[in-house]
């Protein structure tokens, strides 16, 4: 049985450095390239990175301001549609990278977090219903951070970025059992930095491993691409390298998400 369409997607992981931001940006850009109206939010308030990756300047209002109740969500959105080819719309909402803002967000209490959850939940109405957005994507902090769990509760689908690292496998398995399952969330797994991913035997091996260890659908296996490391965060691959295998992988992931095949 197919469940509700995945309109709000949280990209999460157990550990840092698994490629969440790379995945979030390219997922959002792929959807926008395909003509969708997409909004990407940086919910990694402890280590904001979209500001630098998207080379932003003169941001008027931050996502921090919206969650603090200091402004409307429309003040936070920055239209980057002109940077993406096609008829889609690409908006971003950024986390404030200033040290003082990071410190401020780290000191929030649970009542503030509860109100922040209410504000995130209200985005469904404000953006999907009123703003006619097709997708909202949350790039989150790794692990059990309040802001990440708020994003997970708000989302329809959690895309979990993981690697073959032993501690990552163990932590991801625990989060599946003790976090995503408890909130009854649809979950899809992306295994990043896979060695020898081009070989069919390796892909088959990973596929059966995912089934036995995680028991959730595999959204994609991302090989360890030297090109991505060489780009040093300066490229949005799906936009700047349309023929790159990573771009093709993202197209495949989007197909699975759009087909609502993940339950």
């Amino acid at each position, binding site marked *: 049985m197919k469940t509700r369409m995945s309109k709000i997607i949280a990209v999460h992981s157990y550990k840092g450095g698994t490629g969440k931001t790379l995945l979030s940006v390219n997922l959002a850009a792929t959807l926008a390239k395909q003509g969708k109206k997409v909004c990407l939010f940086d919910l990694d308030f402890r280590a904001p990175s979209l500001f630098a990756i998207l080379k932003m300047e003169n941001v008027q209002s931050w996502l921090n301001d919206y969650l603090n109740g200091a402004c409307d969500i429309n003040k936070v959105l920055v239209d980057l549609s002109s940077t993406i080819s096609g008829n889609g719309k690409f908006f971003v909402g950024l986390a404030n990278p200033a040290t003082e803002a990071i410190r401020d967000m780290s000191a929030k209490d649970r009542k503030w977090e509860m*109100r922040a959850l209410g504000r995130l939940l209200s985005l469904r109405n404000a953006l999907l219903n009123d703003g006619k957005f097709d997708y909202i994507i949350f790039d989150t902090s790794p692990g059990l951070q309040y802001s990440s769990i708020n994003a997970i509760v708000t989302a329809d689908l959690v895309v979990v970025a993981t690697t073959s690292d032993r501690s990552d496998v163990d932590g991801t398995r625990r989060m599946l059992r003790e976090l995503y399952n*408890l909130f009854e969330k649809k979950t899809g797994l992306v295994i990043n930095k896979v060695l020898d991913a081009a070989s069919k035997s390796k892909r088959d091996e990973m596929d059966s491993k995912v089934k036995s260890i995680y028991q959730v659908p595999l959204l994609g296996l991302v090989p360890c691409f030297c090109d991505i490391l060489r780009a040093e965060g300066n490229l949005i691959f799906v936009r700047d390298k349309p023929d790159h295998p990573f771009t093709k992988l993202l197209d495949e992931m989007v197909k699975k998400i759009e087909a609502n095949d993940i339950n």
Partner: protein
Amino acid sequence: MNNEEAFGKKPLHVLEKIRESLERLNEKMEVMIEIQKHGRKDIMHPLTDAPVDVMTLLSMPDHLRKTAMTLCRCGRATAEEISVQTSRARAVESAYLNQLVIMGHLKKERKGRKAYFYADRETQG
């Protein structure tokens, strides 16, 4: 209003009061039945101010988490409205919602015959 009208409405008013009392009694009984089913541990330590943040949701028993999460998404709802989304019986949702009120996680407000439940995000903190 003449005497005849006033006289005619009085029994109605009394009946309305009796029905409201019976409904409240029924709600209390539903909560007691559910507590019996799931054990008393859910409400051993009722709190006067316990916001439904995500960490609290994580620590809740499964049956209450489902109700609390659905209400978080709705913002404000009756037991009937929650039951439509959870596909559980209205009486069950009513009992769970009242349990969450006793635990201090939710607030309840009556408007006429309907009881509305909500997480009090604005006044807490």
